[in-house]
């Protein structure tokens, strides 16, 4: 397992460095925006699947003495480490910018609950997106469907939030809100965990069922 995580780190370390530098730079130039960070974060798994596909590494991986489930689990864990690491980094920078280095800020300060909410949204999006790449073993097909999904999501979100005649969001929130209110942070993390677990089992099932290309 550790080997698979290290492998993913080795192939993405340059991108990680650039991503964290980018976050810092946005604070220095007062253009920090959590939505941009999140958009970059959701592109990260695409990068990993692209590297796998471009080099046809899965053929090599399944020939090694790994269970396919372990290969998929390592991918999920690595992405989770990346998300958690990124949010911790953003949280620290936010804290420092707000309390220590005030010249960095343009501030709407991100609270802990903001970070948890963003983390939850992102894990749900990833949980839905990742199985796409296991379903379509061709990266080109996978990325096409992934992009359509993203466009649909942005369009649906814009439509729902800016059209006063669509009240679907209120109905949805009236179901979700009381559940989250039991213990906001814990409940959001549980929801994230459930989505990820479901997504993981779907991906493992697909990885056993599908041919590797």
């Amino acid at each position, binding site marked *: 397992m550790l*080997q698979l995580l*290290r492998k993913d780190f080795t192939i993405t370390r340059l991108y990680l460095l650039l991503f964290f530098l980018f976050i810092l730079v946005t604070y220095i130039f007062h253009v920090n925006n959590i939505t941009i960070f999140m958009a970059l974060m959701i592109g990260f798994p695409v990068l990993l699947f692209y590297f796998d596909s471009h*080099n046809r590494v899965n*053929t090599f991986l399944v*020939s*090694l*003495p790994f*269970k396919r489930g372990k290969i998929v689990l390592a991918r999920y864990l690595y992405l989770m480490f990346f998300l958690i690491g990124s949010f911790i980094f953003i949280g620290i920078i936010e804290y420092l910018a707000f309390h220590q280095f005030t010249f960095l800020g343009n501030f709407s300060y991100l609270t802990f609950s903001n970070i948890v909410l963003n983390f939850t949204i992102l894990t749900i999006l990833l949980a839905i997106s990742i199985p796409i790449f296991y379903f379509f073993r061709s990266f080109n097909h996978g990325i096409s469907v992934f992009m359509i999904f993203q466009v649909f999501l942005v369009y649906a979100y814009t439509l729902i939030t800016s059209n006063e005649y669509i009240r679907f969001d209120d109905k949805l929130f009236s179901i979700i809100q009381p559940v989250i209110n039991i213990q906001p942070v814990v409940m959001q993390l549980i929801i994230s965990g459930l989505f990820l677990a479901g997504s993981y089992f779907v991906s493992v099932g697909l990885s056993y069922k599908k*041919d*590797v290309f």
Partner: protein
Amino acid sequence: MNTVEFQKVTKLRKDFPIEDLTFTIPRGFITGFIGPNGSGKTSTIQMLMDILQIDKGSITVFGNSHKDHKIKQRIGFVYDELFMYEDFTIQHMKSFIAPIYETWNEDLFQKYLVKFGLPLRKKIKKFSKGMKMKTSLLFALSHEPEFIVMDEPTSGLDPIFRRELLDILQELMVNENQTIFLSTHITNDLDRIADYIVFIYQGRILFQKSMDDIRESFHVIKGAKSMIDEDTKDLFIGLQITEVGFQGLYEGNPTIFETFGDEVVIEKATLEDIMFLMTRKEE
């Protein structure tokens, strides 16, 4: 005792089905897997390695299902390409691969690294085809596998390294008594080293025989075109007729052709002759 057993394995595909593959890979021998390009060699190896799913039948490796990931501890593989991240170096690959294998032999790795003259810290994308093949072989051999699977390892290699590779395989057989399954369409490679041959054509196994049987029983008969009629045609399992004459592949005792005297030439068939003539469709 067999290392691998294919039992009626079928892979249904729209463009190219592989049907009812039944053959074995005997333990302690080199088995050559021959067939023209596109006959199903790579797909068969990919099914063996659980890269492609099978639709029917069963594959056992060391007596276990081929889907059991633990058997891969005992398998070394060399594919026709090195499927690894192009920004990786051999050092990166080693850090990733060595801890996975319980039988990793660092001394052996160092020995082959020097023998193959491979750079430890150069990116794979800068490697030549030969260097990539050597890298595959380096990792396939360094964990001392009992069974080595090779898919077209010699294609695209220069003759010098091809010969070196075959020498290494022969050394392994002498020193380690390993089982090797080697697919190739360059049959000259196998004439030298193979003990058994499995011949696949259009997704079906045409035969599995020992090299001794092949040398003993397959002959190429050459003669004038006029000698071929409906009766004589049926004697051959493969036949090529040209303006100059004919050459036919005969399986069995060739003494029946001795009655033709100097009108025919009888030669032992090479694997290339067998592959060429058995896939030849003459009207």
